[in-house]
């Protein structure tokens, strides 16, 4: 950063922004307008700014972000579907001085991995769990997730989610916030630049808390899935604001009592 760039015509430019070394030079495979890529960027910018690339170990989920380890230029492990927080526990317990995070979708974290998630937080594992809630199974083609909203059409709820048959959307983050092991629990989004800045602050705080051995930090990011939702990226932003946020209100659910 802050290097001088010399253009062909002799103009000298000061470089004020570039790809951080914490992101590899590999193009994302995500659909246009998908929130995953923005969250990746935010995470790695924070790792870059805190200068913890050599200390950070990530755990990737099964889901659309299964290849997160190709994009994040840090040591990473790929976990089985739902097991990321158990894998993160294993890493953190043997390398307590490193910073460990898991990155998981709603199917991964709130369906198949519910037990691992709850117990990891309940033990107060000193890790960061990043939870991307797009209300759908993106990777497998848009099936219903535990977080799918009532009436929402997915490939396995083709007439809209019927809560009498399929149950209610699981507000797992609210559950998590109740657990004594949870130190910092917040719900953020990436639907506009302001939201991205807020997420970045939250991630920074979470890593700092981990350095202080405070317990589990849990960041939900209410995100979009243009392909799964069968909407244009712009339409998904409107849907987020009008339908998702009222059900999953943004903001902190648990903040440390300083």
């Amino acid at each position, binding site marked *: 950063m802050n290097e001088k760039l010399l253009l062909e015509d002799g103009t000298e430019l000061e470089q004020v922004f570039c790809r951080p070394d914490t992101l*590899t030079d590999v193009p994302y495979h995500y659909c246009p307008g998908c929130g995953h890529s923005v969250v990746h960027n935010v995470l790695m910018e924070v790792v870059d700014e805190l200068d913890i690339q050599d200390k*950070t170990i990530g755990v990737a989920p099964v889901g659309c972000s299964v290849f997160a380890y190709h994009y*994040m230029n840090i040591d990473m492990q790929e976990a089985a579907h739902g097991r990321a927080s158990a894998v993160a526990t294993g890493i953190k317990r043997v390398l307590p001085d490193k910073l460990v995070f898991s990155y998981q979708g709603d199917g991964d974290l709130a369906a198949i991995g519910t037990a691992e998630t709850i117990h990891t937080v309940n033990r107060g594992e000193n890790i960061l769990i990043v939870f991307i809630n797009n209300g759908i199974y993106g990777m497998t083609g848009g099936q219903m997730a535990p977080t799918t909203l009532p009436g929402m059409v997915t490939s396995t709820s083709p007439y809209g989610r019927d809560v009498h048959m399929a149950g209610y959307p699981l507000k797992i983050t609210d559950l998590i916030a109740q657990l004594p092991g949870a130190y910092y629990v917040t719900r953020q989004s990436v639907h506009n630049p302001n939201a991205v800045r807020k997420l970045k602050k939250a991630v920074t705080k979470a890593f700092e808390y981990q350095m202080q051995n405070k317990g589990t930090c849990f960041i939900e990011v209410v995100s979009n899935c243009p392909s799964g939702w069968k909407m244009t990226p712009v339409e998904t932003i409107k849907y987020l604001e009008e339908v998702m946020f009222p059900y999953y209100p943004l903001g902190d659910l648990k903040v440390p009592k300083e």
Partner: protein
Amino acid sequence: MEKELRKEEPRLMKGNEALAEAAIRANIDAYFGYPITPQSEVIEYLMREVPNRKDKKTVVLQAESEVASINMVYGAAGAGARVMTSSSSPGISLMQEGISYIASAQLPCLIVNVVRGGPGLGTIQPSQGDYFQATKGGGHGDYHLIVLAPASVQEMADFVFDAFRLAEKYRNPAMILADGALGQMMEKVVLPPDGGLPKTPAPWATTGKTKDRNHNIITSLFIQPEEMEKVNLQLQKKYEDMQSEVRWEEFQTEDAEVLLVAFGLSARICQKVVDLAREKGIKVGLLRPITLYPFPYKRIAELSEKVEFILDVEMNAGQMVEDVRLAVEGKVPVYFKGRMGGMISTPEEILREVESILEKQNVLHD
């Protein structure tokens, strides 16, 4: 092996406890597990003993399930730690997902299965009913574990060292497959030396990306078929190389006319059968596979040239007998004697089986 270093007095210990003590002495970095009879003494012993060892920084964690335990093992192994778990049959079934991932990601670790009777919830009594699961993969995909089958409390302890040595050499999960009786019974044991197992460097582990190397990735995802095939072929090559590690033991096979094949506790019982038979003038010998994977096919094939028949003895419905038959390739008859559900054949029962087969054979010869 380290016998010369063993200056300690023999101790009287339970199999599970000897195994746990050996794990401490093997300098494990971490143990993750979930209680299940008949192996809960492993985690109980570690929880009790590790805090009293000033020089040890071993992590011992009781997970919420076997699914979580094995995935914690995966994480820790991927981070370069020497790590183990233990369980019994139903718990090992729950671990199969994780074991397949660990085998694919080529991580060394030790999984101990102190087998009980099944299927299902079954019984807490000893069994060898998990042979197929242990040696043929168990989880999904083409993979094998290194499988060691102890037959004494001494070996419950010794095989911890052997299993880690092999697991780390081949970057492959290893399993100690012991029936419930071996976990529960008390015997004399001379423990392996503390710290007698040097650490294997793991430059591939996720320990934090430093400037001098690319980021390390632990994964079992190879989405391109060409790439997946390459990984599969590499695994198969590794299993081929592992064949050189095959281990077995023989008793009185030199002049044997009847060969018993048995592993673990069944082999202990069959040693008695050999003695009883020889008192009666029947020349019985015993081959006991120590590694169930790799399996001593070659040696069994050689011995089958010299005997009239083979009797395979197990505590199940006949699982290893399939490998014995593969080895023998129909050259001599292979019979099976087994009991299930926690029942164990007595030496007399097995001897009667040998005698009745001999009688039938003689009728055929007449």
